[in-house]
Structure formats: structure tokens, C-alpha cells
């Protein structure tokens, strides 16, 4: 036993028929099938508990609309010519998209870490790009499904116009991808639910609530208005709302630029963490 390194290797024993079919099984292994399967599994995971992952956030958003819309409808005019309830709807839709996209990737990872089932993802030959793509795409799908659910119910209260559906789609998808990526990073970083809850409650939740979901930043005092411009969530909400009303606090191209830049940076971090096996492979 003086070989230079450990090997599970070719020996002198002949291989039988099954071994040849084994080689066949490996040879027909497809990277596309691997990716598709992980994506399907991630989507089925949230679909199987859809009361918790879809119905509950839709109900929460509708309650926000009922309470805030009823109380503030007569007192607030956030955008010229737009009722407060109509103004609120795109913000609530986008807030639901973002929060649920984050929740999907982060909860999937932390659960599988704590349950030990992450090993079933780490043993197969996934590349870090495949892992990233599957987790984030599933997050985008969940975010958009919840967002659509919120929209389909709230739209009956005050139907907003669809000034530019492409902006709606671009901000919806890109915003969900950004939060799905942030959820992935949080899930990789966190070792227990408590840490993930801290990430969610002390970063994602305040940033979402203080992004102009319930108000226009134009109505804020100058200091808070300036602070809002450092919050990337503000650009997501503002750009998404522009798609409905063709009115926004800042130029939608600026919002799209900020969102794209934030996505590229976070995606780069997430892919780097996955490629290094940070907190996943010792």
C-alpha cells in the first residue's frame, strides 16, 4: 500500500453485465435532468404546504389592504389622480413577491441543513450554477405565484391601470430573483432557525416596510427621503408601481439599474459561496 493517494480504482476483477449497464446509467446522466429535477423538487416542496406558503401570505396582504386602505383612503393621496387603495395594491403585491421569494430559498436550505437531508443535494454531481439556478428559480416562481394571488384578490377593491406590463414583469422577476438570492445566502450562512429569523426580521422586513409600500417617499421629510434612496427595496417597489401607474418617485430606468446591480452583486456572492462549499462542505 504505497500509492501516492487514496483511490477507489480499477482492479483486475472482471465486470459483469450489470456493471456495464452501470456505466450506461452514468453515460446517460444529463445535467439538464439534474437541474430540472432539483427545480421541480423545490417547487413541489412549497406546493405541498401551499396553505402555509401561498394562501397565508395572500391573506396577510389582503388584511393589510383592508385595514390600511379603509383607514387611510380618505386621508392620503400618494400619487396624483390615484386612490390610496389603488396605490397600495402594487406595493403589497411586490412586498409579497419579495418576502416569499426570500422565504422559499432560505427556509428550504435551513430546513435541509437542520434535518440533515442537505446531503441528498450535496452527493449528486450538481454544479454551483445548477444549485443557484434551481433554488433561485423556485423562489421566483413562489414569489410570483403569491404576488399573483394577492393581485387577483386585491384588484377587486380598486383595479389599478396597467400602464406598462413589461416594467411590472421586469421588476417582479428581477426583484424576486434578488430576494431569492438573498434567501440563498442567508440559508447558507445560518446554522439555526434563530439566525435566519434574525436575517428576515431585522434586515428583510424593515427594508421592505420602509421602501414605500404604504406611502410615497415624496411625502417624507428630506432626511428620511434621502435615507430611502439607499434602500434597494425602495427602487423595486417604485419601479414595480411605475408599471401600473406610469408615475414614480424616481426614474424607472434608475430603479432598474439599481436592482440589476444589486442582483449581480448578490448573485456573485451566492455563486461564490456555493462554489467554495461555504458552510456546506467542510
Amino acid at each position, binding site marked *: *500500500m*504505497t*500509492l*501516492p*493517494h*487514496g*483511490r*477507489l*480504482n*480499477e*482492479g*483486475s*476483477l*472482471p*465486470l*459483469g*453485465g*450489470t*456493471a456495464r*449497464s*452501470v*456505466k450506461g*446509467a*452514468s453515460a*446517460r*446522466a*444529463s*445535467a*439538464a*435532468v*439534474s437541474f*430540472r*429535477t*432539483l427545480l*421541480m*423538487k423545490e417547487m*413541489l*416542496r412549497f406546493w*405541498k*404546504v401551499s396553505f402555509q406558503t401561498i394562501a397565508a401570505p395572500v391573506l396577510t396582504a389582503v388584511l393589510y389592504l383592508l385595514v390600511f386602505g379603509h383607514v387611510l383612503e380618505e386621508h392620503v393621496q400618494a400619487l396624483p389622480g390615484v386612490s390610496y387603495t389603488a396605490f397600495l395594491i402594487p406595493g403589497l403585491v411586490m412586498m409579497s413577491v419579495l418576502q416569499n421569494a426570500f422565504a422559499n430559498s432560505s427556509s428550504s436550505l435551513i430546513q*435541509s441543513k437542520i*434535518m*440533515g*437531508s442537505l*446531503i*441528498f*443535494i*450535496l*452527493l*449528486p*454531481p*450538481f*454544479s454551483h450554477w445548477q444549485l443557484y439556478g434551481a433554488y433561485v428559480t423556485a423562489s421566483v416562481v413562489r414569489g410570483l405565484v403569491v404576488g399573483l394571488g394577492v393581485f387577483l384578490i386585491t384588484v377587486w377593491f380598486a383595479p389599478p391601470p396597467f400602464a406598462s406590463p413589461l416594467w411590472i414583469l421586469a421588476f417582479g422577476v428581477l426583484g424576486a430573483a434578488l430576494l431569492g438570492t438573498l434567501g440563498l445566502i442567508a440559508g447558507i450562512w445560518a446554522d439555526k432557525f434563530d439566525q435566519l429569523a434574525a436575517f428576515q426580521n431585522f434586515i428583510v422586513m424593515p427594508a421592505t416596510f420602509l421602501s414605500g409600500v404604504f406611502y410615497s417617499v415624496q411625502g417624507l421629510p428630506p432626511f428620511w427621503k434621502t435615507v430611502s434612496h439607499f434602500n434597494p427595496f425602495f427602487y423595486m417597489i417604485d419601479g414595480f408601481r411605475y408599471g401600473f401607474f406610469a408615475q414614480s418617485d424616481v426614474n424607472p430606468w434608475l430603479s432598474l439599474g439599481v436592482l440589476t446591480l444589486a442582483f449581480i452583486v448578490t448573485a456573485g456572492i451566492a455563486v461564490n459561496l456555493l462554489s467554495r*462549499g461555504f458552510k456546506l*462542505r*467542510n
Partner: protein
Amino acid sequence: MTKRYGSILALDRVDLQINRGEFFGLLGPNGAGKTTLISIIAGLVRATTGRVSIMGHDVVADYRAARLSLGVVPQELAFDPFFTVRETLEFQSGYFGLSNNGAWIDEVLANLGLISRADTNMRALSGGMKRRVLVAQALVHKPPVIVLDEPTAGVDVELRQTLWAFIRRLNREGHTIVLTTHYLEEAQALCQRIAMLRAGAVIALDTTRALLAHIAGVQMTLRVRGTVPPSVLAHRIDERDGALVLRLAQPEDVGRVLAECQAAGCQIDDLEVGRADLEDVFLQLMAERLESERIPALATA
């Protein structure tokens, strides 16, 4: 290869080659480094120095081909609570890039006695059944190399027999099997070659037959009342549950020992004579290693 966790040396210059088609055992006490070694082979842990290749594929540089060649049954009972047994296996098959693998999945389910539970949610399974699913997950992509890390820990006799019958069949068909187990009789019955680890180092590596030959002669377990004569005690190698374990050079010595005991007035309550088994080899090698570590320590004290 070597693996360090800070100041702890988990694997110390381990250098192994496991041949294709072999049934190979990896034995050692808790903390010997068996699971660390398996984790490095599986790509779950990265070696500090050195490298591992599976079927010629480096587990880091050529991880895709290496992982396609490998199926691992982990020690911990892990499962995804959202899915049924069949869904779990279909997903695992898909992760390895295989679609339309239903026929093989059915065969694995049947061979592991899981057919009747195929549509049961993983949460509803007993520990033994979950263990079977873990084995099925490792086999679902027909890997040429199968690593089983304590696969029969805490499971019933029926599963052991079912599992070993299936694994033996896979081995006969050309699959390489690497097994860690605390049940040394299983290793003795199944493995063609065995490596023994202690404190991260390989302290023995040989065929099972050669390892058993390491302890020559006859082993005699004797339960007696009275004062055992020193000539008999000179053969003592161990004491288990109040019985003396003696090693004798040849079968003829058995009669002589019994005669000496009777001459000394001892009453013999129980007697067992047999060849040394793998457990004896294991204990002796561990004891020898401990002794060899103790002597230099004493010399430098």
C-alpha cells in the same frame, strides 16, 4: 491524504487503494476517522492535503464523473419530510441526471422490501424503513462504487439479511462495496479486504483471511471457580464477564490447561473453544497500537 480540523488530526496520511469489484471493510473505534474518510470520498469534506479519485476521477477536480460513480449510504437517518418514498427515489435519480428510471427504482424498492411503502410519506416510516430508503437512495443511479457507512446500525435482523443479500448480489455483479460497521462479524462474513483505522491512521490493511491468521492458535474461554494456576494464567489475553479468555498455541494445549485447572482444584463451570474471530484481531491490533504509543510516551516522560 490528511485531514485536519484546527489542531485535531482527523486523518493521518491515509493511503489506500480499493480495487474494482472488491468488498472492502473500513473498521475502527468511534472517532477513528472512518466517517471523515467516507465524507472526503463523497466530496462532503475536503482533504487538507492529498487527493482521492474514484474510477480514475478526482473527487474535486472531476467531481461530476466521480460523484456519478458513487453511491453513499450515510450514517445519520436523514430524510425529506415533504415527500413519499417513491418521490424521494425519483428525485434522487433525477439529481444524478437520470430520467425514466422507474424500472430500476421498482427493482430497488422490491429488493429492499419497500414496495408496500412506496407511496407512504417519509415521516410515517419507522427508523428501520427510513434506513432502507437511505440505502435505496444510494443505489438509485446504479453507482459502480457503493459506500455504506454503518448501514445496519440499530436495525432489525430482517433488514440486515435483506440488505446483505442485495448488497452481495450487487457485489457479485461487479459493484465495488466499501463498508464501515461496528458489527465485526458482518465485516468478517462480507469483506474480502479490511483496513483498520485508529486515531486517523491505518494500522492494518490486509485480506480478511490474513488478518484472522494474525492471531494463530486456539482461543479458549473458561469460566472457573477456585484459584487458577499461574501456568494457565500465563495464557490469559482478556477477561470477559468473569470468564478467562486464553490463547493457546495449538489444539492439544486445551487438554493440558483443563488438566492443570483440575489438578489445582478448580471447578470448571463453562468452556468454549474456537478460532480467533475478527473481533479478537481488532482488539489485539488496537491494544498493540495503544501499547506502541504508550512506550515512546513513557520514554519521553
